[in-house]
């Protein structure tokens, strides 16, 4: 260090007089710019009663109406939920739930009657709900191969390591690979309206239009492209272990078959929380009004999906929809609460401010 030092002295020592006189040297005077002199024009907000208190009142005044609106909307939404897990002895599905029937060839069917007190108007959506199902477990979440699902031929035949232990079966690659695909929900739900005149009318359920557009048309693609012969494409692959049918037999409709089967896509969009619901079917553009009149209904379940082992629950949910989505009392209540608290805070702060606040500007600045 020292050596550098006294070297520099040598350099500088001889030009000490080069200040104002030595006009050849550029002046070392820093530039007089607002930036360099730290004089940039600036907005300097100060928390004063004049700005903070109105903010609280405004938040209060905005949030409370939103909250009330949300709450009312949410309350107007019709929602019906039935648990068909079959835990209780009395439950119609008890028998089915008892025998493990993951891929038994003889399907176990149970019928659950229920009563809708109010008619459901407009589009009605049917969901299945699972509880205590850890779709968000790290090992589960990563157990998929997005390239394969995107229709990549290489990945189809050599699935990613992440899919282990569901990558190969009998030395054949599994398509679709991974634990998520393997555990796809495979109960079949059918809804019947028990007409007061005694006939059982099948409610038409649409199995398309339930997945996100981007998923269906961007993220998921069948290998070989549209219109390819799926049977041929998937030649040489194995179906997921738990599946009854190979992936190219999920639906007869070719635009809803293979990887782009919407039930499959919905399942593959893993839930954030262990209790979740997923859209199963829609009842759209019903010819009858109301879509689902009040009355007796029967839910017929082909019971395949075992959840008892981990104390899971299966539910079927029917719901109508509003501008804010489905029934969601949380948002409304939260908005009303937060709005009220802010308003209240505003009042309290105002009182405190007037009672003992510091309103004099500068009188008591002392050094």
């Amino acid at each position, binding site marked *: *260090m020292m*050596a550098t030092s*006294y*070297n*520099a*002295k040598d350099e500088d020592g001889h030009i*000490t007089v*080069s*200040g*104002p006189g030595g006009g050849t040297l550029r002046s070392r005077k*820093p530039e007089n710019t607002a930036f*360099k002199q*730290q004089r940039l024009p*600036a*907005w*300097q907000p*100060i928390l004063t009663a004049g700005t903070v208190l109105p903010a609280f009142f405004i*938040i209060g005044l905005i949030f409370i109406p939103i909250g009330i609106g*949300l709450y009312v909307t949410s309350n107007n939404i019709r929602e019906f939920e039935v648990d068909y897990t079959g835990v209780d002895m009395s439950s119609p599905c008890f028998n089915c739930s008892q025998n493990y029937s993951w891929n038994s060839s003889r399907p176990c069917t149970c019928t659950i009657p229920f009563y809708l007190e109010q008619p459901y108007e407009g589009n009605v*959506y049917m969901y299945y709900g699972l509880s205590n199902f*850890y*779709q*968000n*477990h*790290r*090992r*589960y*979440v990563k157990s998929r*191969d997005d*390239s394969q699902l995107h229709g990549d031929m290489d990945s189809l035949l050599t699935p990613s390591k992440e899919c*282990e*232990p569901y990558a190969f079966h009998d030395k054949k690659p599994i398509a679709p690979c991974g*634990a998520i695909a393997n*555990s796809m929900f495979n109960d079949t739900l059918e809804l019947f309206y028990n007409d007061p005149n005694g006939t059982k009318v099948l409610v038409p359920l649409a199995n398309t239009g339930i997945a*996100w*557009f981007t998923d269906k048309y*961007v993220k998921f693609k069948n290998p070989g492209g549209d219109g390819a012969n799926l049977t041929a494409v998937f030649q040489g692959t194995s179906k997921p272990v738990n599946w009854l049918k190979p992936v190219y037999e999920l639906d007869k409709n070719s635009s809803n078959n293979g990887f782009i089967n919407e039930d499959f896509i919905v399942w593959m*969009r*893993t*839930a*954030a*929380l*262990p209790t*979740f*619901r997923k*859209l199963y079917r829609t009842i759209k553009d019903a010819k009858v009004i109301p879509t689902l009149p009040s009355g007796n209904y029967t839910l017929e379940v082909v019971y395949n999906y075992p959840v008892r*082992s*981990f104390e899971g629950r299966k539910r079927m949910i029917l*719901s109508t*929809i509003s501008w*804010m*989505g489905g029934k*969601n009392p949380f*948002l409304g209540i939260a908005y009303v609460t*937060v709005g009220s608290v802010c308003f209240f*805070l505003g009042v309290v*702060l105002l009182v405190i401010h007037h009672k003992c606040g*510091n309103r004099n*500007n500068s009188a008591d600045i002392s*050094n």
Partner: protein
Amino acid sequence: METNQECSFDRPVKEKERHVKANARDYNDKFHYADNRIKTSKYNVFTFLPVNLFEQFQRVANAYFLVLLILQLIPEISSLSWFTTIVPLVLVLVITAVKDATDDYFRYRSDQRVNNRQSQILIKGRLQNEKWMNVRVGDIIKLSNNQFVAADILLLCSSEPYGLCYIETAELDGETNLKVRHALTVTSEMGDISKLIDFDGEVICEPPNNKLDKFTGTLLWSDNKYPLDNEKMLLRGCVLRNTEWCFGLVIFAGWQTKLMQNCGKTIFKRTSIDKLMNTLVLWIFAFLICMGVILAVGNTMWESWIGRNFQVFLPRGEIQSSAVFSGFLAFWSYVIILNTVVPISLYVSVEVLRLGHSYFINWDQKMYCAQTDTAAEARTTTLNEELGQVEFVFSDKTGTLTQNIMVFRKCSINGHTYGDLYNEFDQKVEITEKSACVDFSFNPLSDQRFQFYDGSLLEAVKLEDAAVHEFFRLLALCHTVMSEEKSEGDLVYQAQSPDEGALVTAARNFGFVFRARTPESITLCEMGRAVTYRLLAILDFNNVRKRMSVIVRNPEGQIKLYCKGADSIIFERLDPSSEDLMHTTLEHLNEFAGEGLRTLALTCKDLDEDHFDVWMKKLLFASTLIENRDDQLAELYEEIEQGMKLLGATAIEDKLQEGVPETIACLNLADIKIWVLTGDKLETAVNIGYSCNMLRDDMNEVFIISGNTLLEVQQQLRNANEQILGLSGVCGAEDSDKTEMSADDSVFEESIIAEYALVINGDSLAYALDPQLEHVLLDLACLCKTVICCRVTPLQKAQVVELVKKHKRAVTVAIGDGANDVSMIKTAHIGVGISGQEGMQAVLASDFSFAQFRYLQRLLLVHGRWSYLRMCNFLRYFFYKNFAFTLVHFWYGFFCGFSAQTVYDQWFITLFNIVYTSLPVLAMGLFDQDVNDQNSLRYPSLYKPGQQNLLFNKSQFFLCTLQGLGTSFLLFFIPYGALSVMVREDGSHFSDQQTFAVTVATSLVIVVSVQIGLDAHYWTAVNHLFIWGSLIVYFAILFAMQSNGMFGIFPSQFPFVGTARNCLAEQSVWLVILLTSVVCVVPGLVVSFLKVDHFPTLTDKVRRLQQYRKKEGPQKKNLKRVSRTSSRRSAYAFSHQQGYGELITSGKNMKVGSVFSARSPGRTPNRFVWIENLLKKKNEVSCISDENIETQTAQQQCTG
């Protein structure tokens, strides 16, 4: 370094004795002494990468991230993709490496420059030009005037008579006056190369060490032994002056020279925030481990209760088969996920901020000095925020507080004062730069730089007022200045003390030009006439006499004694006839002293021939005495310096640097204690203390500690202490609870209302710094408002700083300009060098440098305060942000089976710290200012929070992490509540992971952006740009990363395709984001509002005032001016050494050409006496009269 290792192979590890033989390279090579090449750079092209990387990974933080990276490569643990860590890590490493490489390159370049300097070496009978690095121990080298000495060399001979040479040691010890070195008599005769070639003397001396003022050795030559000491050595770093050439034998070279041995290793200075930050990072590590353990236990429990049953859908691999082991793996996974609580970008961001702050210092126009064309410079870029926490300033005096320029300001001649300016109403007006100077153009020999404003003095001279003439004649005759006339009329004075220089220059301009001197005569040019006085005797100065006299015979043949000295001494020796004049003059002196001027009284006396002859004989006899010579001489001097006639008095201004008193007053208001540490004399130091307003008449007591023994000093310290404590009514704090006292001394100190000052001299300080006494000293010093240490050595300066550093836990600043301040500058937390002056040593050792002391005020109160504020705000926000960001994963752990699933997209985790949130916080850290610079200076109390460490400490850290924790909780649970049952407008389900991730991430980005908006005090356009820009960039990247195109290219890296589009198109998601943001921000807002509204700090008040004023429009400045009200008589202190009178009369320092001197062999024995005397060898005989050379200097005709 390499040489050192080589040595250790065939030599004992430590050199015990050094043998150097002249002109014998082969012989000297045996010892493997270091060569003269120096190397301070660390790397070369090939070693840079490995060495630098190795060094970087030695830093805990980098090593930590490397470990994380390795962990991530284990698939069972890897909870994050590899790129989430490697991208920031590489970024950090590259930035640091670039910086290191640049620094090292500059070091390399400067090494090269030094190593390649030319030097003349005597090789094989010829002088050869060689580079410095090729100089070897044992070589004989030739130095020319104004050259740097290349190594530590033994002076052999020089161009000057008697083997003398002059050096300037400013680089080594900061003293700018010339020092004399002289060769051994035997070697000084070898004036030419042919003799030097045959020189084969061998030097045996001490091994290399760092003692600059000591050297012991012997020269063995032709069977004789000659002792060697430091007076024969020229050390590397000195500059040869006034000596045409000299030859020397290289004793130490390269890193073994005393200069290099002294430089030691630069201590890497760290700020207290740095240390705190390191502690906090360790705490965070601990916290991280705790979280990891909690989650790992959770994982074990989950695996054994739920996961076991869930194997239908999620089979365990072989590794997860045991729940405990799975928990162990989860621990590591969580360590990886939660690593962002220790943000890798923290250290880099802090460095960037400091660099920015340093640039602002460099750019500050208000710290630019136009006279010397120097801007302030932050030489160390790592200490900025520490500038905002300073409690102690240790200042050098000369060159720092004062300009070290003496100016002849006023005088009193025969009861009349000159020097003040009056306007037409006879009122005194202040002298400013604009005042008209007296025109000295009548005098061709005048010094252009001399300025005097009172024209009446010149008129008096022109009117041939006898008293005025005598006055200036005295100034021109009575001194020890040497003149040099390079060309006709171009006079250069070399004065031992600047005071004398100023006086002689004043006389010169008023027409009494001191032109030349020989040992026997002084030639003046009096009002254009050349007049030669015979110099009969110089009655030299010493500390006791405090005066000097000359006895001259003027051309008319009269013998006259002229005497100048401290007024108190002179007034005792006046002729009774001068009594009236004395009273008038005394009044004037008081007036001068009140203005802080240094005064001198001038007298003269006519001597009659017989009386003088008798006295002269006695003097000659006395000067040949061996015993009691000094006493006898003093007595004789005393005898003749009696009954003198008062001529008048001079007043010299020891020019303070601009704005020094104001700065000191301002810093005092900011509770910064200023201690002056100076090598100067007590009187000078006290004088300056008064003129800087550090000492005042209204102080209760100024304690002066000057003892010669430990006990004496102890007693004085104790007395002073008791006096303070007794008066303040605080008693009983005796030795028994001394420790307790020092523990809460800050409270205690404040209870002292009375003002005290402490002045301590170097000798006493040496005792007071004894471990027994240092506590007493420190307690006393801290009770005093002002502390002045005078006559201190560079080492003592450092010791004082060290003392305060050790016991007070306060941030210290040392400020100085000379090499003697280097140790103190290096010791203090922050070293400040005064630049733009001669020596650069202090500047080069310093962390900050600027041209004037007064800039310290701005550096500390504005830049330091801002830096501290910014750094604290930055850190608080940074920790808050990262806790809010990371701990969401902790809450999520409870809902995902403790599986270390991330909430966010991997890319979001990668980019959050380095892209989405880095710029706004950097902008805040760079530009924020709570109060503008004028107000920072106007209200120095604003500085106090920094000293008390209020803005960022452990509790503040705790609060901001708590806020982060709270935010993370809300960030997770509000979307959780809202999304768990949410469906989209089209009925499709919405509670999927990716939507959740985007919602939480968006809320997070918005919340932290709003929060920084609330935290920032100063929204410049850049802040706006960065905050809004970051939000825009976030959304842009979000959509880009989740676009079809990206997914099409890398399907497995961008699985989030389409999520943002689907999710952010929903009103309900926006409602969730709005709710989350409001709920996260409101609590903090309420707290800060309550604080501002109910417990406003001074800052808040000033801010409000500032805004109020801004609305009112600009107001006129009413900066307080500090008035100087000192009425104290300033003491006259000669700043030059004793012994120069003798030097002049002996004629030894005259060039051969200017003195007609026959070299008679008979004179040789006495020849070196004066040197010995000068070097304070005692009891030697000096004889002035022996040398009765009739010096007939031609009467020169003055020009003009």
